[in-house]
């Protein structure tokens, strides 16, 4: 994943800033620095066969050539003329072109050379020669066979490519070489898994002059360079056989290939025969970005406009980069949601993250440049990640405990009643106490109580901790930009670019932070249930941060390889992956239609987000319970659920849906609610039991029951139970197919269940939000219940039909596939 991220970022860099990119792994010759690559473009024209022959030498052979012949890597070197002439003839000694078995003499007609820079600026050399062989008066209608072979530099690694083309007056009947090259005359070496460098040093083709000129239509398709045809020689050579048998096989297969290559009469588009320009020498594309950058940056004046544009682009990249996962965006968001942050805090936090990021990049750049012998930067990344992950986790735990133990605190905050937290007695006095007292002295209500100027809930220390740890992990993209500029001795420019990059990063982070702050303030504006904003949101956000911090730390730990001696590496990483997958699948599972519909019948009647969340949690608990029980039975005891039973379970869900719907519609629900409702409804928050804060003597369940009523608790629980019944088989089988060990499989069930709880809780809260909000202003509440009732009944009926008749519960043939 990390490599993918790096690759993507680099690609982005190159696209946007193709003239600024300069990877640290300085681009050696793409084919390896001792390679010699060949290109041969054979062209059949009227009266001649032309051979465009290009040799691309990498750094080492170039140096050896220069040593042996005394030339220098300057295109104006006067000795080059003689050198090229001599080379042109030398190469022909080992080039063979035969027409119908008769060797053709190759006459050099032009020579050319360029010296593109390779690794570290050391020269490479690209030679191009054009040869002509006479073609006397070919008789129209006859087929001529040509055979070409290149014996120069045998055995040397490199890209070896041959292409064959003919003028329109000739019909290329067969050809073992394609018509279009992949390398654009050795200026680009695209290599991937299915397109490894060609290794063709021989080719054969046959052509037939046409009777009249210009009669042949332009061809439809030449052999597509990317088309992979079955090879002409079957690897019976796996056994290393050479000789008759493989020869016969070759003959057969190659004849099929040649008929596939093109129907007779198909001609191939030719480049204009006379323009040598069509084959002009170009430096490697892989080298081009660097060249352009060199030109630009080594310009005399770094003009203002250039700096401005460069800065803009760097900033844009930084902004884009911030949108990718990482860089503490989520941490920032989570923190701001959970704390009492203002817009100013958001801005400050964004700036701190950016400063941390910049410092991290500078530091890493310095290490790479000066200390790379002792410290390998790649090894630093995981440690940095682990440290910052741990710090974030610790910080999040602190926030979590803090948020959790505020017992009825929000009310007391209003009043400014002195209180303490259970952990105040622990640890040092001093900073901690001060922070705590600061945290709790700010007024939260909107009653115009003047909030004190100095104490803020969000302390600078917290912001600093969070910002630095969130931003300290430098990203490879920025490092690339910095080191690229360094390698061109533009140190100031590099530093400047990084600052611009970080500003772009900051902008996005601040925007996100502001978004969070305003969203929270919007949320807090309607205080239908303050406990959501005062208690649950901070807890949720702190919990989320904790999970994130742990995830960052554990991922980094794994990549340090420290743990690899301890665990089997693969097992642990897959364990983490499995846990995450389970959570995610669980969350997704809760969004199934029948779950949503059932739960909506309840939330439609509620008016608070907190209650909505609770409903979701209870549903999840019930659902998990059944899944766990039934699933464990399946896993541990191999319990097999016969199709009819499975279908019946799903059928019961349908029945339940109908029941719920009908109850909603008939108002019987209302009676039930009132009958078994909570002891006091509509009690004002103020008269809530002002028991001593921090009193956990009261049972949590008891409190819930009193607050919501036992009916309200059991209903979602039971619904969840029934849903769980229907789904457990599916989940258990899915788990069994991927996890072998029963213990882990059961653990996975639990994890999945937790995922469903979280997912449903989020969903019900989300459902309750608009209802709670709109309920204040409109009288929708009255209509929601019947609407959801209709929905539920309808859906239930549909399910009944589906299960009963389509899946065959009521019929003879039952087919049940656990979904």
């Amino acid at each position, binding site marked *: 994943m990390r490599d993918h991220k790096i690759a993507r970022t680099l690609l982005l860099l190159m696209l946007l800033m193709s003239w600024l990119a300069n990877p640290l792994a300085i681009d050696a010759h793409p084919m390896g620095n001792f390679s010699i690559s060949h290109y041969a473009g054979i062209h059949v024209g009227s009266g001649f066969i032309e051979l465009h022959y290009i040799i691309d030498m990498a750094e080492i052979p170039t140096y050896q050539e220069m040593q042996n012949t005394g030339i220098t890597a300057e295109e104006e070197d006067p000795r080059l003329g003689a050198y090229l002439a001599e080379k042109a003839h030398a190469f022909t000694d080992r080039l063979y072109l035969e027409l119908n078995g008769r060797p053709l003499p190759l006459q050099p007609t032009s020579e050319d050379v360029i010296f593109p820079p390779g690794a570290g600026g050391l020269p490479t050399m690209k030679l191009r020669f054009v040869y002509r062989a006479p073609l006397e008066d070919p008789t129209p209608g006859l087929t001529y066979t040509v055979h070409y072979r290149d014996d120069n530099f045998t055995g040397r*690694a490199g890209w070896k490519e041959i292409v064959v083309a003919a003028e329109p007056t000739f019909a290329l009947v067969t050809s073992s070489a394609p018509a279009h090259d992949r390398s654009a005359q050795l200026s680009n070496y695209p290599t991937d898994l299915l397109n490894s460098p060609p290794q063709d040093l021989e080719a054969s083709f*046959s052509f037939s002059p046409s009777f009249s000129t210009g009669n042949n239509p332009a061809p439809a398709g030449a052999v597509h360079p990317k088309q992979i045809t079955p090879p002409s020689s079957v690897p019976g050579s796996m056994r290393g056989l050479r000789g008759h048998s493989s020869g016969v096989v070759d003959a057969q297969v190659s004849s099929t290939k040649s008929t596939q290559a093109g129907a007779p009469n198909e001609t191939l588009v030719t480049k204009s025969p006379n323009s040598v320009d069509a084959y002009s020498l170009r430096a490697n594309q892989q080298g081009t970005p660097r060249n352009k950058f060199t030109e630009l940056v080594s310009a005399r004046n770094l003009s203002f406009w250039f700096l401005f544009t460069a800065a803009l682009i760097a900033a844009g990249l930084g902004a884009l980069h911030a949108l990718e996962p990482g860089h503490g965006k989520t941490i920032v968001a989570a923190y701001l949601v959970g704390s009492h942050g203002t817009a100013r805090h958001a801005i400050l936090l964004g700036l701190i993250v950016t400063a941390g990021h910049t410092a991290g990049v500078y530091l890493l750049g310095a290490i790479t440049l000066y200390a790379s012998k002792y410290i390998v930067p790649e090894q630093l990344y995981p440690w940095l990640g682990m440290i910052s992950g741990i710090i974030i986790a610790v910080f999040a735990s602190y926030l979590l405990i803090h948020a959790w133990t505020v017992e009825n605190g929000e009310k007391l905050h209003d009043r400014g009643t002195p209180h303490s937290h259970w952990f105040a007695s622990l640890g040092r006095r001093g900073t901690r106490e001060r922070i705590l007292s600061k945290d709790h002295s700010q007024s939260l209500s909107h009653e115009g109580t003047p909030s004190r100027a100095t104490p803020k809930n969000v302390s600078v220390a917290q912001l600093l901790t969070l910002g630095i740890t969130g931003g300290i992990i430098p990203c490879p993209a920025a490092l690339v930009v910095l080191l690229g500029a360094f390698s061109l001795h533009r140190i100031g420019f590099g530093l400047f670019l990084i600052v611009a990059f970080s500003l772009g990063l900051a902008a996005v982070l601040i925007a996100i932070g502001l978004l969070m702050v305003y969203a929270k303030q919007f949320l807090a504006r309607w205080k239908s249930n303050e406990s959501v904003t005062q208690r649950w949101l901070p807890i949720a956000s702190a919990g989320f941060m904790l999970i994130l911090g742990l995830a960052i730390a554990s991922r980094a730990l794994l990549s340090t390889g420290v743990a690899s001696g301890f665990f089997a590496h693969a097992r642990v990483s897959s364990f983490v992956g499995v846990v995450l997958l389970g959570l995610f699948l669980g969350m997704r599972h809760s969004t199934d239609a029948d779950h949503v519909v059932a739960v909506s019948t309840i939330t439609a009647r509620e008016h608070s987000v907190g209650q909505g969340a609770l409903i979701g949690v209870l549903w999840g608990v019930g659902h998990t319970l059944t899944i766990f029980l039934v699933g464990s039975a399946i896993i541990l005891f191999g319990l097999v659920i016969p199709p009819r039973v499975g279908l019946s379970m799903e059928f019961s869900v349908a029945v339940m849906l109908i029941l719920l719907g009908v109850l909603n519609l008939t108002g019987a629900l209302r009676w039930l609610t009132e009958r078994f409702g909570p002891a006091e409804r509509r009690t004002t928050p103020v008269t809530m039991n002002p028991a001593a804060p921090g009193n956990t003597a009261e049972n949590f369940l008891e409190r819930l029951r009193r607050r919501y009523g036992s009916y309200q608790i059991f209903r979602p629980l039971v619904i969840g139970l029934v849903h769980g019944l229907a789904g457990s088989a599916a989940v258990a089988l899915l788990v069994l197919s991927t996890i072998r060990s029963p213990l882990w499989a059961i653990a996975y069930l639990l994890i999945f269940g937790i995922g469903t709880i979280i997912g449903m809780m989020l969903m019900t809260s989300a459902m309750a939000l608009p209802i709670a909000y709109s309920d204040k202003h409109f009288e929708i509440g009255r209509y929601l219940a019947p609407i959801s009732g209709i929905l539920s009944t309808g859906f239930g009926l549909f399910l009944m039909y589906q299960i009963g008749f389509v899946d065959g519960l009521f019929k003879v043939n039952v087919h049940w596939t656990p979904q």
Partner: protein
Amino acid sequence: MSFLFLLATNRAQARQHETDNQIHFFQWKVSQDPDDFFNYDRLGVAYLQKARETGDITYYNLAGKALEKSIDLESTQPEASSATKHLATVYYAEHRFAESLALAQRAINLNPRDITPYALIGDARSEMGDYEKAWDAYAQLQSPGGAQSETNAVRYLEQSRESAESFLKGDTKSAIDHMRRAVNLSVESRMAKESIAWTQFTLGENYFQSGDLANAETAYADALKTYPDYHRALAGLAKVSCAAGHLSQAIELYKKAINVIPLPVYVSALGDVYARDGDAAEAKKQYDVVQYIARLNAFNQTVYNRELSVFYSDHDLHLPDALQLARKEFEIRHDIYTWDALAWALYKNSQPQQAAQAIKEALRLETNDPLLLFHAGMIYKRLGDNEKAGDYLRRAIAVNPKFHVFYADLARTTLQGPSNRSLAVRSQETIDARP
């Protein structure tokens, strides 16, 4: 007409390389069925073979990609052990020894019935200096069921690794026996040509180390016959020619080897032969090429650190760099030859005490490698321990009187009497020293 054409293409195809055919075939298979892990595995093997033949690291990268794709598609069933062990081979070739080890272990865990990864485990452990564990791993290749139940592949690995182990432990004769058997097995099991040639070449190396130049030449020639233009075989023949005194032949052979792959060790050896032949200018040219390669090495982080360190030490060039390169190599490799490179660099950098400690490590398996013994002799000489020095130098000459183009003579002259000359190998000095 068409028949002639077919014949022509025949020749064209037949000359095309076996490995290239394999690559094309499996590329086609993969394109037909991109979800089949087996084809990616085979494609990776083909790329791996190509990489060995050409020395071009592009193919290691491609092999890695193909094998990773195979593992992506299938990583938990026993069938995944094939791609896993092949990927381990790629990492080994890239000198990522720890990762190679881990993957090889995983391959065995996936499929305990395939014991071939033990060879790789042993190789990786050897490179990391854990020789005891390496011997244990190699021992696993001897299946308890006896010769019948083993496949040829396992038997080949068993013999070739036994040979390596024997040589390192100082029993060169056993090493030769085992390697001869390995050659036969490789031919019988129709391994890839380059692999057979490699085995024959290694046999030649063993013969050379033991001083048997005649058999060494035969083995190298066989390798060349098996795989025309095999650069290692050419270099081996060059070494033998030089030892026999046929310097111009040695020069030609080294040049041919360099034309295929210009490894620093070949270029450096060519320079030494030129120097021995009296052609200082040409010698210098070759040394310049090696230094040029060193510059590229720094950029590309290729795997030449040890060879370059030894080159610098041997020729008294950039001695601080020699030490630094040896230390850098030491970070990833702890085998006896890395200790040896370190010892030689320390010696040349006038730190004979530490050099002695390093050479002790290098000799801890009691390998009968004349170069190691020679280095030890020179180090102890510098420390003033003439007895030990003499002992080592004598042993070096006894094993192979012609073990090096210069050092064999240097060993003899050092034995003969106290020498005030510096012990460096400069082209001019050694020309003077020629009999």
